């Protein structure tokens, strides 16, 4: 577990659990984030944009792909940051119940 993991463990308050369980829970957190973020970003794109995205993607230039994505979704950075915090908040809320 690296320092970033440890920070998250502390933030979630799961430091008293066995490390294997901590890692497992963090894995679940990242999967949740990945899924939710993916859905949100997908919702930002129209069918036409998704088709364009496919073309950019198939060209194999990741830099260009990212540039295209950030252009198509102007608030891309904010969406990522917001959802990251939102997932954390949701899990914490669930833990407090």
């Amino acid at each position, binding site marked *: 577990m690296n320092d970033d993991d440890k920070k998250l463990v502390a933030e979630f308050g799961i430091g008293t659990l066995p490390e294997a*369980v901590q890692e497992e829970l963090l894995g679940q957190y990242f999967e949740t984030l990945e899924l939710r973020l993916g859905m949100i970003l997908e919702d930002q794109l129209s*069918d036409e944009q998704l088709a364009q995205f496919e073309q950019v993607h198939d060209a194999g230039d990741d830099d260009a792909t990212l540039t295209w994505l950030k252009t198509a979704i102007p608030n891309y950075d904010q969406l990522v940051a917001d959802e990251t915090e939102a997932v954390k908040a949701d899990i914490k809320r669930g833990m407090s119940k």
Partner: protein
Amino acid sequence: MSEQAPHTPNDQPLGEIVQQEYANGVNHLYELDAEGKKQPISYDAVAEAYGHTVGPVPQVEEAPEAGVEAPAVRDKQAELRAHAQWKQKVNTMDRDSRNSRDFAKQGISGEDVAYGDWLKENAADDHAGESLNNQVKAEAQEAADAERQERLRGLAALEMRVKTGAATGEEAAYYYTMMEKAEEEPAQEAADAAEANGDHRGSTAPEPVEDAPEAVEEEPVDDAAEAGEEAAEADAPESEGEDASVDDESQEVPAVDPNAEPEVEDDRSEEEIESRRKNANETRQEDMENLAEARDNYAQLVAGRSRRSLTIGKYSAKKVQEAREEYENLLNDILEADAEFIADVPGVTAEMIDGARAVHAFGEARQLARTLHNHRMVATGNFKFNENGDIEAVKKGIIGRQMNKFYNWFGSVNTDRGRFSTGAIKKGLAVAGIGIGTGAVVGLLAPAVAGVAALGGSVLIANRITKAYMSTRLHRKGEDAVFANHGEARLQELYGKIGNGTNGVEMTDVIDTQSKTEVKRNRRRMALTVGATAVAGIVGGELVQHFAGIDHVPGNGSGNHTPNHTPGNNGTGTGHNGTPNHPGKVDGFKEHVNVEAGHGYTQELQDLFQQKGINLSGQQSFDLYNHLAEKFPKGHFFTNDPSYNRGSDFGISHSGSANWDPRVLEEVNRWAQENSIS
């Protein structure tokens, strides 16, 4: 100009006043005496009774000092009627000509005229302040517009949270209420919300909304606070409280006191506790099934609405809101029951309860996200749920909607066509603006995350996101070119295993730190409870291993794809060009395999390589699986298991004893040699 009324009322009492309108248009006032008989009374008398002076029209230069006040001693009903009549006169005076004869006919006195003039002067003053009023109004409008824009932005953000199932119940309830209204109204505000959201997709703009309640953002905080209070209460287990009271009681009551009442309370409590335990165990399975059903229903409706074409009937906002409430209510009921049940178990500490809550919270968040995602995939029309609850392509050859490509892209980030490579990793790091040596693989999401200073785990997040997509969104190449759901299905298999309650024992780790003898007895209960509660919770080391297998790329940027294995344990034992020395008996690979419940071929391939001390990563195992699927298109990898086809993938039909087909093992060995995996 003073804003006070012209005259003060006098103190002469009046009886009840009634007005009678005659056919010729004349109105007369009457005062009712004590016997109810009508006595004519003039308008002037009424006016005088209210403090108005009756006489010539005065030259009113400024308003009199005193205001109009109804005498407290008078009959309020009569006063109100009289006052209403007087106001009617004044209003009539304003509308009609100011001919004195007309006034007289209408019972309008000079005082009335004076008061009318006074009103007009004040009205003029109002006009004089019009510019100021306009300025104030303009500022107020500007503030309202700004507030409205802010609300729209907030609502747009809320919409995202709702659509991903992340919103709280209160948030979702509010959102759906707004959507319900908006569905019957013009969509003007939808464009505003879309603009506020930076939404370039007209069809996905937030639907028309009304002003959001100011408390929307605060509600989660309130919830958290309330939940925190509840948690604080729950953190004090009943048993502890009862124990404390017993201790106090035992100190106060002498042990030899013959009059001391038997401590039947404890016995009853124990019975109640046992009863609750019994009931909890008996109903738990049913509760969890209900929860799964409610979650699924809610996710399905949310996914349906997210398609935008389905916002009525079954997918109406009201239906979605109801589904959300049902889901949350069930979830909360289960959580409460768990908290009560666990707290009843002697020896269980608050720390353990927190651990159980954590497992549930993480697991439930993921499960909801996964369920929603699956329904969204199905909503595209290109996927369907199979009998195992997994999603699969509706038919072979489907390229998949663009959305799938979108997800695939995440999966391909930092990979070179499905494989980690030095070049891709360096590129990812460069894109992220993070120097090599940070010890992580960085996905294209990293730049966004890394840009937020508050997110200390940015690199880690990007890393995990990449890995997660690698695990669940692997793009299957080949003639099918279908969005591969292999990783997804594999994890679903694990979830199925969990759903059968076999993972309960994993949570014994939570309480392993407790060494009390009593805990040993409780461990089983705790594990049972938590294991069943978590549903999608702990999956033991399997998922970790799955991720860990991918996470073999060293942080030094080498991107070496060589798997981690025990040095010197080269157990290929094959001849030249990978040809086994003994066909069907590949050295180091045993034919017999014991398939664990929930395992798929990729796990079994990993286990196979473990026989030779090689840790095959998840990616490698999947690559090998694809290789075998091409070589053995019918998926007959085991001699005694025909495999089942789940659309674009093969699954193992049964757990238990099986045997690898020797030809498959030969191919496995050949593949390992070609890929320098030894």
